[in-house]
């Protein structure tokens, strides 16, 4: 088995809801509710789920971009939540993030070359010539032309901005990159370019990805393993091949069947889930999925199913598996 790069145990992230006369906390949005997983060096782990399932919050919490509520996060064996501020800052280049929104992720007042290169200054490279060289080299890798060095972000299209975001993450020679819905805001023809860029980079630089997306087909294309989330919990996780061949959790099955296939002759056997996604502030009892589950029974309402290995490294949380 390969080396574990990122180890997440019982991670919880609750956002408080306040109320009452003194604005005391009266409840929590359980964005991430007791999630554990490992990411091995060189692999790419996909996280899928619908809006509000907590996948993006996980991405930010394991990088300590927001504070956790409970649990541990070990990166290369270091607990990133017990590191002092300065040490954490020094470690940051090793773990990077690419954001979803190509517009808000770049500072409108900073030239692209500077945006990509500025982190080098703060991590000990002070020779501006070297920095410029490295920026240009990285821009080249990411498919940006050198004349764009002195341009401002507003002059770029969504796809190019996403390339800039990738270059900014890449220049620090990271080992681990969280890609938070990096292609959701892009058009199909541009999506393919970015997906290809990400997979080329992984191959050339032995990168490890946590790839967050709501699009199962993109995850299938790019990831080695996939975790499926629903309302803050991991409901199923296994290797991509296994998951798509043999999905076990009823939610995973429904999610897969809901994706429209671009083939008019395709015979659909769709499981249409009834109702809406419940609010993560007030999740259902027992198995959180029971309100929409086609096979739910009494036990699902009362008891949360155990998240267990059913063999072949296939983890699932359902009473009926």
């Amino acid at each position, binding site marked *: 088995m390969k080396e574990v790069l990122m180890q997440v145990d019982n991670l919880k992230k609750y956002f408080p809801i306040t109320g009452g006369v003194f604005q005391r906390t009266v409840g929590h949005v359980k964005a991430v509710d007791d999630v554990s997983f490992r990411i091995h060096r060189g692999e790419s782990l996909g996280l899928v789920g619908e809006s509000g399932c907590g996948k993006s919050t996980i991405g*930010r919490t394991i*990088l300590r*971009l927001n504070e956790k509520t409970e649990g541990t996060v070990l990166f290369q064996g270091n607990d990133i939540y017990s590191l002092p501020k300065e040490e*954490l*800052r*020094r*470690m*940051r*280049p090793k*773990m*990077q*993030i690419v*954001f*979803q*929104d190509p517009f*808000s*992720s*770049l*500072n*409108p*007042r*900073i*030239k692209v070359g500077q945006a990509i290169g*500025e*982190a080098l*200054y*703060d*991590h000990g490279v002070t020779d501006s010539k070297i920095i410029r060289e490295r920026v240009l080299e990285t821009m080249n890798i990411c498919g940006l032309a050198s*004349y764009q060095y*002195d*341009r*401002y972000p*507003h*002059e*770029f*299209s*969504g796809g*190019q901005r996403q390339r800039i*975001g990738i270059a*900014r*993450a890449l220049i*620090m020679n990271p080992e681990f990159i969280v890609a938070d819905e990096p292609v959701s805001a892009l058009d199909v023809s541009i999506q393919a370019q970015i997906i290809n860029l990400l997979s080329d980079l992984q191959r050339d630089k032995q990168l490890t990805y946590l790839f967050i997306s709501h699009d199962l087909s993109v995850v299938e294309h790019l990831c080695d393993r996939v975790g499926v989330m629903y309302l803050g919990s991991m409901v199923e996780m296994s290797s991509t091949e296994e998951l798509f061949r043999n999905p076990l959790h009823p939610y995973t099955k429904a999610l897969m069947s809901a994706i429209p296939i671009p083939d008019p002759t395709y015979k659909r056997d769709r499981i249409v889930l009834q109702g809406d996604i419940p609010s993560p502030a007030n999740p259902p009892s027992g198995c959180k999925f029971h309100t929409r589950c086609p096979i739910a029974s009494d036990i699902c309402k009362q008891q949360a199913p155990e998240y267990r290995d059913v063999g072949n490294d296939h983890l699932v949380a359902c009473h009926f598996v």
Partner: protein
Amino acid sequence: MSADVMPITENKNTKAKAVDTPWKTAMRRFTRNKLAVIGFIMIVFMFILCFIGPLFSPHNLFDYSLKNKNLAPNGTYWLGTDKLGRDILLRMMLAGRISLLVGLVATCITVMIGATLGAVAGFYGKLVDNLIMRVADIFMALPSLPILIILGAVLSDLKVHPSSRIYYLMVIIGVLNWTTLARLVRGQILTLREQEFMQATEALGLKDKRKIFKHLLPNTIPVIIVAATLSVAGAILSESALSFLGIGVVPPTPSWGNMISAANNLIDFRKRPWLWIPPGMCILITSVAINLIGDGLRDALDPKTKK
């Protein structure tokens, strides 16, 4: 819908185009706004009039000549003379220096206090933020005109010398106004902090210094510029109101406000409008001009208004 029509894409032919910095774009937008440009011309005119005009005046501020007192506007005294026979135009220009200066310096003080406290509150959050904002609440609820009036009266009672009163006034007006700016700056910083590029600075492990000076401040400056511009007008109006009541800038130092207080004398008010209408018009023009500029700047600096 506009999102569907206008993707900002780049053509090959833009390769040769010069880089358009955000400031240049703002300048271009500003100069395209007719009202703002008119405001700018008006304010430049006022400055030239007040600071350079007196140099060309044939009269002297201390030309007391009772035989020339209360003259209506004529060839020698374009705007007439007052009861001591002094030239109104000259006095008005010199008064303008004082009024404009009070407005500018008071605003500088406002900006220094307001922007610093707002930025500190927004950046550090938590306890510091709470503390600063509670103090701001107190200042917000203070009725500003009554307080200014009391303070003006205090200055009179402390027998502050007329020539140094203007400095006290600058400080008082400046200090009382800090909350608006502090709130704006804090709000802007809180908004910025939610933006993904600020999260990126954290993820990249940038130093706090760079985060503040390269990322936060440059994006906050537009807000400060607009608020500061508008607050110059406010400060000038406050000063003139106080001076009109006789508790701001007091004679012999001329200011537009205390020149208007000539109107308190019924005869002067009725029969000698040249004593008080010109300085009133100056206040009006200056404040309209500043408001126009401020509004133009707001539109020019706001990234949301794409043109």
